[in-house]
Every structure is written in C-alpha cells, then in structure tokens.
C-alpha cells in the first residue's frame, strides 16, 4: 500500500473573476522511504500541490489518502494529531520561523503539541534533535535570526523530524541556500531517509538537484502532469515539451575533466 495516494486533485483560483486551474486533475503515489520530485516552471502548480497535500489549503476536488486513511476527511483534533506524520520544510528558513523564536522554542513546540515528551525531558530531546541534524547543542538558546542560513535549515529539518514523520514535504528546501551548504543539507536529508525510511515530496525547479536526489519525478506544466517516471530517465531524455524546455534551460558548466 502506498504511503500517500493522491487522486484527481484539483484546485482553482479566482483571478479577475474567472477561475484558473492551479492544479488540474493530478494523481500520484509515494511509497515509504521514497523521494518523489515535483518539478516545473513557476506557476506550474508544484507549490500548490505541496500545500494541498499538507492541508494548508483545501482542494476543490480529489482524494488524498495518507497512511491508509482518507486524509481529507480528518478534522480538528484528529487532523492535528495526524499532522505529526506529515511534515514540511520551507524554502526560506528565516520566514518559516516566528521572528521572535529561539532554536529551543522552535524544537520544543512539536514535542509539546504532540505530547511526545514531558516538559522536564524536552531539553534532552531538543539536544538529541540538534545533534541528529549536525548542530551544536549550545545553539539551543540562540535566536533564530542570529544563526546562519544553513544552520536555520538544519533547525527546520530537526523540527520536521521531531514528531517522527513518515513523509516530509520539502518545498524548494535547498534552493535559497549557498551552494556549499546545499550539498551538506542534501546529504543530511538522504541520510535521514536511509536510516528512518522517511519519504520526501521534493519540490524543486532545479532539475540537476532533482536528478541527483529523487527516485521518481513528475514534471508539471500549467497545473497538469506533463510527464513522470524514473528521475534519471526522465531528465536524461525528456519527452514532454516542458521537460525539454527545462533541460535546455538548465545552466551547464561543461567542465573539462581529465
């Protein structure tokens, strides 16, 4: 059974009166421990799909099955409890945290909300989470805006894994990072996936990164699936017009390699 099964997902937006389909009849599945990438130009609907899957916005039509049950049917307490299993990492780690928060508070929230650890035990859990994502434990009392972008994204990952999720949505999670930091964050994510069988819905506009880290890819164009399949196969030899355009547009280094 798939971890996540999305079928016929549709979401319309109203723009100057007439409805525009942001996501149009999209279906896909994600297996446990798998990385599925959603790629496409801006406005192709990839971020909208991420927000629909997370129930940050509600679809106009379609089904979302998560861990074997109807995710769209959940309300209130039941929905909030299930959210522990489905987490997210945002593109801009500075915008993703309350500007007044400290590292410790950001990590304390999920532990407290889901009753994962009693108050006295939480500092120890927070320290363990920081260590797990490769951060020094003494970072805990620091304010979020004081630490570097790479450190912030590690904190975001620590927060996402605090509730032991089975699926993490990564919405352009490495796009805003410096290239030297990006590789380290990708390594961390892949290590988490390997050890804890976490599945990723990896949203990115960067086909090079998608090809390097995803098992499968879905190429989106104007809210519809243009093409999908094994990430390497699709990107090495795209069939759809948008796939060809994306590949042609990707900057190349053309390095001379002896």
């Amino acid at each position, binding site marked *: 059974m798939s971890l996540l099964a999305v079928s016929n997902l549709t979401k319309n937006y109203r723009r100057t009166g007439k409805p525009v389909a942001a996501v149009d009849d999209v279906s896909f599945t994600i297996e446990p421990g798998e990385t599925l990438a959603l790629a496409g130009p801006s406005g192709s609907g990839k971020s909208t799909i991420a927000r629909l899957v997370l129930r*940050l916005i509600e679809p106009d039509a379609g089904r979302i099955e998560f861990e074997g049950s109807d995710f769209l049917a959940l309300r209130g307490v039941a929905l909030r409890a299930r959210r522990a299993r489905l987490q997210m990492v945002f593109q801009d780690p500075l915008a993703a945290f309350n500007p007044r928060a400290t590292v410790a508070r950001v990590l304390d929230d999920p532990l407290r909300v889901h009753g994962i650890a009693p108050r006295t035990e939480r500092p120890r859990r927070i320290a363990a989470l920081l260590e797990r994502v490769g951060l020094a434990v003494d970072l805990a009392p620091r304010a979020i805006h004081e630490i570097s972008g790479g450190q912030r994204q590690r904190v975001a990952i620590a927060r996402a894994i605090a509730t032991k999720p089975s699926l993490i949505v990564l919405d352009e999670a490495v796009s805003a990072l410096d290239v030297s930091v990006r590789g380290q964050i990708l390594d961390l994510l892949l290590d988490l996936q390997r050890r804890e069988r976490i599945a990723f819905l990896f949203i990115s506009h960067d086909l090079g990164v998608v090809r390097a880290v995803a098992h499968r890819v879905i190429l989106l164009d104007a809210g519809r699936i243009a093409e999908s399949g094994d990430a390497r196969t699709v990107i090495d030899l795209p069939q759809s017009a948008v796939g060809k355009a994306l590949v042609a547009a990707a900057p190349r280094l053309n390095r001379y390699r002896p």
Partner: protein
Amino acid sequence: MSRLRRFLHTPEAVAGAILLAVLFAMALSASLLFPGDPQAIAGPALLPPFQDWSLPLGTDRLGRDVLAELFHGARTSLAVGLAAAAAALVIGAVVGTLAGFAGGLVDEVLMRIADAFQTVPGFLLALAFVSVVGPSLGVVVAAIALGTWTGPARIARAEVLSIRERDYVAGARVIGMHPLEIAFREVLPNALPPVLAMSSVIVAAAILTEAALSFLGLGDPNRVTWGGMIAEGRTVLRTAPFLSIVPGIALVLTVLGVYLAGEGIVETTAVRRGLS
C-alpha cells in the same frame, strides 16, 4: 542599552519622561505627603495660593487643601487613564486578532460590532454607560475602554491579515498547533508593535475623557479628580480662577507628558525596525 540611549537623545521624549516622572511621583507620594482625607476641610474657604505656606496652593470653596487634592487627583487620572487604555488595548488586540485570524463569519460579526461602537462618539458612549450603571472608578474605566477599543482592534486585524499568510504560521499549522495557540502565541505578539504605538494617544485621550466625565459630575464621587476640581472651581471662576486653572494646567501637562514620552518610544523602536 542603545535603545534607551536613543530615547534619551530625543528632547521631546526626555521632556515627556520628566513630566511623567513628576506625575508618578505625585501619585505615589500622595498618601505620604497628605495622609488625611484630601476632601476634609483644612482651613478657611477660598484661600488664594501662596498666602499660607501650610496650604501653598490655597483652599477651595469648602476650605479643602488644593495641593492635597491635586496630588490625590493625579492618582485617579493616572489610574483611570492607564487602566482604561490597557483595557482598550487588550480588548482591541484580542478582538482584532480573532477577527483577522479566523476570517469569514467571525470576522464579519466582530467587525460589524466594532462598526456599531465606532459610529457612536466615544465620549457619548462613556457618558451613557456611566449614567446608566452609576459612577464608580471601575465603571468609568469600562466606559472609556468601551469607546476606544475599536481603533486598536482595526489595526491589530490589519496586521494579523498580513501575518497569517506568512510561512511561519503555515509552519505552526503543519506541526499541529491549535489555532487559538497560533493566533495568540505566534501571530498576536508580532502584530502588537503598531497597536502599542497607539497607546500614548489612547492613554492621553482616556485621561481627558475621565476629566470630562468628572467635570460633568459623573466621576467616582468618593475620589478627588482633576475634572471634578475644575467643575468645583467653575462656580467661583471670577473670584477664584486659580481653582480651575491649577488642575487645568496639571491636566494639560499630564496629557502632554504621556504623548511626548509615547511618541519618543515609538520613534526609537521605529528607528530600530527601520535599520534591521
């Protein structure tokens, strides 16, 4: 503290702070310097100021010590002004946050209620409320807050509307936080600065409204108020104008002090935010 230093470098802010400090000192020392009942008779009636140094500001129509009344009146003015403004800010911030964050029907209902309050002039509302419920300190505070909470509510709502679209609010939902906790722990604190920027104006207005209510005889009858003193002096305005002028000056300086100090705080925090 560079913020304090910046505050102290603004002359208006310093002037305001000094005025406020004097006012607070008066309020706090009132029962030490004038331990008795300020409404008790202390000497001959209508003694002009600077005649008898045991009664430096003279006495009123009933022979009460004007200086003692002034000190005790400072208490009422400050207490009512601060309490009413605090109540208005709290109610406003809570209502505005709920309306902005919940949206939909809740927003619609709360904002129509705010409209209803806003269409009636605040002073008229306070006047009606006090005359129906009866004058006491608590009622006066409630009456003033009733007419002033809508301003903070609207500002809080506008701020919340923009904040609720930010990623960190989505992030709080993703970790499963309760909507009320998101509204009051994540959103409200970040929506507060512009609401608090209004507080100096609200406190100043509340002090004036309290004085006006007292002037009309709708203040707490068991307490000395500056508005009541001015009203008292009105009947002998020609023969003893100082009875109205002294509390009048106190009132003007207080409102000015609150306003200047408040603006100073806003200014220094605004500079800070502009930098970052």
